[in-house]
């Protein structure tokens, strides 16, 4: 959804691979960017997601977007106009708040095995415990190994929390807001989204680079965007499906 009084076309880039036109459906000065489709349910395949992303990229070049969730299909343009009308006040307000803001994603991973080795050397408690194990030939007992495992897990999550805090500290002054998402897999320690003022984009870039450089090859930064503010707006639409006929 965007702010626009006059109808806009974005080319034949619609999702579904049929080259459908992407156009705008208006209620006053707000609009939904849509394309026609013969199907009602879109699987979140990579192909569909990339097509959706490409449309968003194109629209974002000249508009502030409030992103609808992937694969929302309405019966007709009139239905869309009705929805826009119903949510107009809150939509207008959020569009205003989001003007000139962009979202970036930052996923940080580390080499877990390498950090565990570091902890075994540097963490006094773990170092001592492992030394004891070897000395008393306890290495093979189940409970001793369990205890060592628990100590390492605890130390790992403490180290991760420290690192994540440091990363946030490095970015705090150049962003508006942040969201922590759940990490994926056991190598990822941070899966965050940042909301940036458009004119601070270069500064944010530089800050991310500076933080990444500080940690060198110990951390791996995956920085993506700009995205529309997926993580910073919440669209609550309680919709009803039409009857099949």
């Amino acid at each position, binding site marked *: 959804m965007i702010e626009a009084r006059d109808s806009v076309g974005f080319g034949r880039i619609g999702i579904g691979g049929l080259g459908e036109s992407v156009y705008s459906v208006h209620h006053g000065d707000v609009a939904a960017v849509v394309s026609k489709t013969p199907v009602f349910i879109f699987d979140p395949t*990579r192909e569909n997601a990339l097509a959706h992303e490409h449309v968003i990229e194109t629209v974002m070049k000249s508009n502030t977007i409030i992103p609808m969730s992937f694969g929302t299909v309405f019966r007709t343009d009139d239905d869309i106009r009705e929805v826009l009308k119903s949510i107009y006040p*809150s939509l207008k307000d959020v569009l205003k708040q989001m003007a000139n803001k962009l979202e970036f994603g930052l996923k940080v991973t580390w080499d877990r095995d390498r950090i565990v080795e570091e902890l075994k050397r540097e963490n006094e408690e773990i170092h001592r415990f492992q030394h004891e194990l070897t000395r008393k030939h306890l290495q093979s007992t189940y409970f001793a190994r369990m205890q060592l495992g628990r100590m390492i897990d605890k130390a790992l999550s403490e180290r991760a929390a420290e690192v994540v805090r440091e990363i946030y500290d490095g970015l705090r002054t150049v962003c508006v807001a942040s969201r922590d998402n759940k990490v994926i897999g056991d190598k990822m320690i941070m899966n965050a989204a940042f909301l940036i003022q458009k004119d601070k984009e270069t500064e944010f870039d530089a800050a991310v680079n500076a933080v990444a450089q500080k940690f060198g090859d110990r951390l791996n930064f995956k920085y993506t965007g700009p995205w529309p503010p997926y993580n910073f707006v919440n669209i609550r639409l309680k919709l009803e499906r039409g009857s099949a006929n």
Partner: protein
Amino acid sequence: MLFLDDLLALPITGFKSILRTLAKVAEEQYTDDAPIKERLLHLQVELDEGTITEDEYIKQEAEILRELREIRKRKREVAGLPPEEATGFTGKVKEGSGVELTWDPDSDDNVGPGR
């Protein structure tokens, strides 16, 4: 694990209630799509990291999406709804619909872990 804990936490009100709990847990697992969605996320990370090829991704993605469709179908069955209708949404939105921010623009404390 959840299974056993749930059973142990039960007050002793007879075998019937245990069976009911078992049925409920089974039903939840039968209709829970969260682990499958998580598998899709993991798969994307693996593709990004280059641990799997694009071909493998597409193959596994198809399998995951098939399971998701299956669960969506079961959910509707369990809820007593007819199979997914081949139609889009209407323009009617229920009370409480709208757009909101997930952060507070009036606060200067919007950045950091745990938000």
